């Protein structure tokens, strides 16, 4: 990477000469566009050379498994162990989802990823009026421990790692998972997995919040503390840029807003009296794998370097594990088209390749039919096979960080790193992520980029194959997965049966203890676990906390 002054000046001279011939060519025939923008809104130059990539190799890149981790968090990366192929799945009842998990594990999935329905994500039981029409639709309906027992039936929890996309009520679902483990005789320190538990991006981009900011942050730090003692291998949070990007942000903002949120959690835990090295090693991330292959590779690399810097230099963490950025990723759902759905297989392959070349630790690949409905079993298989082809046939997993040293990749890595850090500092000046969300700054930045994208598509500035160019007439797609509308009734029947069978006096007592704990300031996790084990429903537990803490009121902005 390092060039002598003489070499650089020779390159500069040659480049000036080359520019003359470029100008001549352009005078004869202009380029396809006046300015080229990446899918993440970075302006892209015609050519990158050593002039763009000055800097010290050791300071900027280093070695895999070593600070600043630009080249990867582990010393051997995919030569040691491939990324976890983790397919996000869940729909209908626990019985149906349990079947899908077993199917995925039988086909070579290496970890589970649970999708919950919206009532579960927002702390309502299936019989709540707000749950009407939503039960079992975008994920599995879980009302109580009884459902969780079925969901993981015959899946040994000491053998799989399980990721759960659950935020506001993450503590409740984690407690249910622990209770199932206990029934299986699996000790808590053998449990591996992740809860998303990232409430700040719910306020700004994803929408499944329940409680106001303060009690939500308390729940999160309580989980950090509880898990560091009892569930030490559990990733207590998955700080997510995925949804920020899906909501329309630029690539730089995906990193900036995610890390601003991450810093807010670290500060909250430190404020609650925890030592940074006690919890920072269990912080994990979740990024988008978007369309622009080389930009995405640069984004993952910049993210690792930046988080390492933030933890080491800003928070003064001592343990190298605290500096390590480990991430799950998912291909960009919002880039799938309802037109010519088979083209989505190609898009997903490019996006997945970006995540792998970027050095992701785990990956979900979307299915071709997801712009139309929940994915069918057949299209999920193709999506999983896409990862397997990349892993075993493409060769990209056989050497570490293979695109390092490309002038373009290194220049773009620097650009994303610098611009994201600038934006983070701007947010810090506003008073941090909580404040920036409260005043609507983050939401409005995302919205601006989303609208710009739409305008670019409509003006033809951005081409989406099959949508605004190369369209065809095509028949209605068939074979889409549909959730049986009787799921809600099945869940309500199960709830009624549970309530008639369980020890209702014990449930009331556990909920009352939970209410007392919510009013005080001790760790609330043990109380949630006790309520869960008494078969209190998720709605009862969250309802109790709603009564004590109130609900978040979103500022509606346009």
């Amino acid at each position: 990477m390092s060039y002598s002054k003489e070499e650089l000046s020779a390159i500069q001279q040659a480049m000036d000469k080359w520019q003359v011939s470029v100008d001549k060519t352009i005078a004869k025939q202009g380029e396809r566009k006046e300015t080229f923008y990446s899918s993440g809104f970075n302006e892209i130059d015609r050519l990158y050379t050593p002039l763009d990539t000055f800097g010290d190799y050791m300071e900027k890149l280093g070695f895999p498994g070593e600070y600043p981790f630009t080249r990867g968090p582990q010393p051997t990366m995919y030569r040691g162990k491939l990324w976890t192929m983790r397919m996000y799945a869940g729909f209908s009842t626990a019985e149906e989802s349990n079947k899908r998990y077993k199917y995925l594990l039988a086909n070579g999935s290496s970890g589970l990823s649970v999708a919950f329905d919206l009532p579960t994500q927002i702390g309502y039981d299936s019989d709540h009026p707000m749950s009407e029409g939503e039960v079992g639709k975008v994920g599995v309906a879980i009302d109580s421990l009884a459902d969780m027992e079925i969901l993981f039936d015959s899946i040994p929890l000491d053998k799989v790692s399980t990721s759960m996309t659950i935020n506001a009520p993450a503590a409740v679902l984690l407690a249910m998972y622990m209770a199932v483990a206990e029934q299986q005789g699996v000790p808590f320190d053998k449990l591996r997995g992740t809860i998303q538990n990232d409430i700040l991006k719910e306020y700004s981009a994803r929408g499944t919040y329940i409680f106001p900011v303060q009690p939500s942050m308390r729940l999160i730090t309580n989980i950090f503390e509880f898990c560091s003692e009892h569930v030490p291998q559990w990733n207590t949070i998955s700080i997510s840029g995925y949804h920020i990007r899906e909501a329309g942000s630029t690539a730089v903002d995906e990193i900036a807003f995610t890390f601003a949120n991450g810093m807010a959690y670290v500060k909250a835990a430190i404020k609650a009296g925890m030592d940074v090295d006690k919890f920072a090693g269990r912080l994990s991330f979740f990024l988008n794998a978007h369309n622009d292959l080389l930009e995405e590779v640069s984004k993952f690399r910049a993210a690792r370097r930046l988080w390492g810097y933030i933890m080491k230099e800003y928070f003064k963490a001592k343990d190298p594990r605290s500096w390590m950025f480990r991430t799950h990723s998912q291909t960009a759902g919002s880039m799938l088209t309802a037109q010519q759905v088979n083209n989505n297989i190609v898009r997903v392959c490019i996006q997945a390749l970006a995540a792998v070349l970027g050095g992701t630790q785990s990956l979900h690949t979307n299915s071709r039919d997801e712009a139309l409905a929940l994915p069918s079993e057949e299209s999920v298989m193709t999506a999983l096979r896409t990862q397997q082809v990349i892993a075993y046939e493409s060769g990209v997993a056989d050497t570490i960080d293979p695109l390092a040293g490309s002038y373009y990749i290194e220049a773009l890595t620097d650009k994303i790193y610098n611009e994201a850090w600038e934006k983070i500092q701007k947010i810090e000046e506003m008073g941090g992520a909580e404040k920036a969300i409260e005043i609507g700054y983050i939401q409005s930045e995302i919205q601006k980029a989303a609208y710009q994208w739409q305008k670019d598509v409509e003006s033809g500035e951005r081409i989406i194959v099959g949508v605004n160019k190369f369209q065809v007439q095509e028949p209605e797609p068939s074979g889409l997965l549909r959730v049986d509308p009787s799921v809600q009734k099945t869940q309500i029947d199960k709830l009624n049966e549970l309530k008639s069978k369980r020890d209702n006096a014990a449930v009331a007592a556990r909920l009352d203890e939970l209410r007392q704990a919510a009013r005080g300031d001790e760790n609330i996790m043990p109380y949630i676990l006790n309520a869960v084990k008494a078969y209190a429903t998720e709605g009862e537990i969250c309802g109790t906390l709603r009564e004590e803490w109130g609900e978040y009121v979103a500022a509606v902005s346009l």
Partner: protein
Amino acid sequence: MTQRRIRVLVAKPGLDGHDRGAKVIAQAFRDAGFEVIYTGLRQTPESIVATAEQEDVDCIAMSMLSGSHLTLMPKVTRLLKEKEMDDILVIGGGVIPGEDIPLLKEAGIAEIFTPGTPTSTCVEYVKNNVTEKA
């Protein structure tokens, strides 16, 4: 007399948090000169109809990506009918399988715009189909 501007309520029924589409279409409507009211997330059919009444809108545009459109969208049109507000143009958009569209149209949702539709198409549709109010 100057013609009154078209008033549109952009609404998110149910628990779905995906509001990118709702916000994009709301801005496109606004740029087209409509007056736009956006409900925010987690609206019940009742609250949508109440807002529509309060704001005296010409059109309700619902965005749904959670799969509960067959339950919630027809409930909105049913409530409008009960309140004799069915002169309001009701349209929808989002992740909605093609085979559901005839069912929604039968229930009084005038048009469904699926992913990939240019916002200009939606704008034109609203302009051409709202009932002129005095």
